[in-house]
């Protein structure tokens, strides 16, 4: 495959965008519909990433690489899901502040575990030995194919989220987010539904984490910083928390702008790339978030339109 037209930075830039869009879409189910402000996105992402990585590299697999890879991927997803179930169970009845602190604390715990459990994770030195489950030639070609595969996974997540809006389940999630006691009085098991939703969303975040780890081929606690959570949160809020396409629009605008346009096309001095740009990015994220919340709190796409959507779904 001739990939000369494609710059390596474009692959990694687009990959960041796709990963953040995926996380943002799952966050949309939790925050946008059910109003659970999960500030521990990176925790579930990290649990999935490390569970996958540790199982894949530490076990002496008796069968082919592809099967070992898929089993490890399923394992990473499952562990993140179980973590989501447990954390969900702890936070489901807390108020917004409690949820924020609880999930943030969880993400911190994951970061610290990844750093201190050196036998398993390699600690701050990191964990190597990950590879793509295929080899089609150059590194660039392999990475490009991985970008395509992950994009397909995220597209499937997008389709799933879009379907959720058109089901009785999605209606229940919106109802729980809008008025939980009222939903309960209509016979809805709101607590159970909240923790299951949280588990499903977290499992998805774990899957994305594992896919992300494969692209990096080297896992280190550095990739478990708060900036992942912030990026997903900022992308979703700017695009529109309540809209399916919010995370997509926000992800391409915010992450796309920074990881592709600013880093690659603007003539910035070379010495900025180490420290200045990542810091600058955080500052601008924060600034943009404040501006959006002040002037357009529902994001670019605005609020959900159940009136139009349901008319379409029911064919009237």
């Amino acid at each position, binding site marked *: 495959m001739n990939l000369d037209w494609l710059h390596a930075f474009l692959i990694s830039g687009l990959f960041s965008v796709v990963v953040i869009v995926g996380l943002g879409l799952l966050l949309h189910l939790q925050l946008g519909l059910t109003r659970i402000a999960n500030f521990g996105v990176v925790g579930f992402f990290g649990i999935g990433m490390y569970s996958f990585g540790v199982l894949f590299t530490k076990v002496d697999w008796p069968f082919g690489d592809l099967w070992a890879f898929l089993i490890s991927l399923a394992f990473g997803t499952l562990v993140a899901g179980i973590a989501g179930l447990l954390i969900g169970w702890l936070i489901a009845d807390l108020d917004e502040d409690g949820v924020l602190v609880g999930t943030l604390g969880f993400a911190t715990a994951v970061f610290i575990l990844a750093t201190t459990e050196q036998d398993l994770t390699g600690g701050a030195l990191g964990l190597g030995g990950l590879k793509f489950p295929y080899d089609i030639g150059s590194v660039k070609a392999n990475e490009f194919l991985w970008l395509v595969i992950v994009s397909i996974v995220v597209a499937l997540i997008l389709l*799933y989220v879009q*379907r*959720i809006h*058109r*089901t*009785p*389940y999605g*209606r*229940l999630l*919106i*109802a729980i*987010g*809008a*008025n939980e*006691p*009222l*939903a*309960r*009085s*209509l*016979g*809805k*098991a*709101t607590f159970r*539904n909240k923790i*299951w*939703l949280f588990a*499903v969303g977290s499992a998805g975040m774990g899957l994305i984490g594992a896919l992300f780890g494969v692209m990096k081929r080297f896992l280190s606690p550095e990739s478990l910083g708060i900036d992942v959570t912030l990026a997903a949160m900022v992308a979703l809020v700017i695009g529109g928390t*309540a809209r399916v396409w919010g995370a997509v629009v926000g992800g391409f605008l915010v992450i796309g702008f920074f990881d592709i346009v600013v880093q690659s096309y603007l003539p910035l001095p070379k010495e900025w790339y180490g420290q200045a740009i990542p810091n600058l990015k955080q500052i601008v994220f924060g600034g943009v978030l404040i501006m959006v919340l002040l002037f357009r709190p529902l994001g670019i796409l605005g*609020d*959900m339109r*159940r*009136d*139009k959507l*349901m*008319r379409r*779904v*029911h064919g*009237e």
Partner: protein
Amino acid sequence: MVSETQTATLTRPQIHVQNAVKSFNGRVVVKIDDLVLGDQPIEGLIGPNGAGKTTLMRMIMHSTSLDTGTISFRNESVGDVVLSDLPTHWMAPHGVVKSNQVIMDFDKLTILDSMLLSVSQAKYEHPHRIFDEKTVYNSSIEHIHEYMEFFELGDPYRFAGSAGEKKLLDIIRCLLLQPRFLLLDEPTAGLPEEVTSKVVEIVRELATAGTAIVIVEHDLNVIWNLCDEVHFMAEGSVVLHGSPEEIRQHKTVVEKYLGEGHV
């Protein structure tokens, strides 16, 4: 508008409140030794502000916990159920349903959404059930349309606007749950007169079909016209029972609490 399962029942379900006590910060708000609701098709619960009517309703729905005592639901088809041991969301599946005194709405859901939410069964509400909208819609839309037309709600694909509309929607959501025991907490407060009379009509229809109904209401005309029995609550206890006529004869008590001109 009333379903067959409701007409099939001959004996009316009852709610039995025994030794139920509820206090907030040491102040006893409700203290009921023995009270049976549902002897008559439509019963009223009246009393001055702060008598504990709404708290009692919330205790029955177990949306507020009891300090001591039990509240049980007697029902021919499922037998005795101790409501005060069950979580709130099990009330509706057992057929015990309450409308809200204050205006409660799901702001982001349309009128139709709200009704579909009410009728949708739990088995359709799982993360993997992603193709069930048509099933739920087709199985309930006729029933929903009957209410839409009866209350002249117009376009279902819009959001409930006025306070009165939200209040009415709250009552319709309760009706769609096909209650066996319906508690109405000030159902006519904030409703226009013609809607009130329609609500009264539906309540009568439900009662004839076998649903037990308890109404808390400040508009005593509704109580005197509609109820077969009235419970008068004061300071946390039921102090008087009887037919509307009997209650009205206790002028001293009623006037003391409700003021002249209401009797």
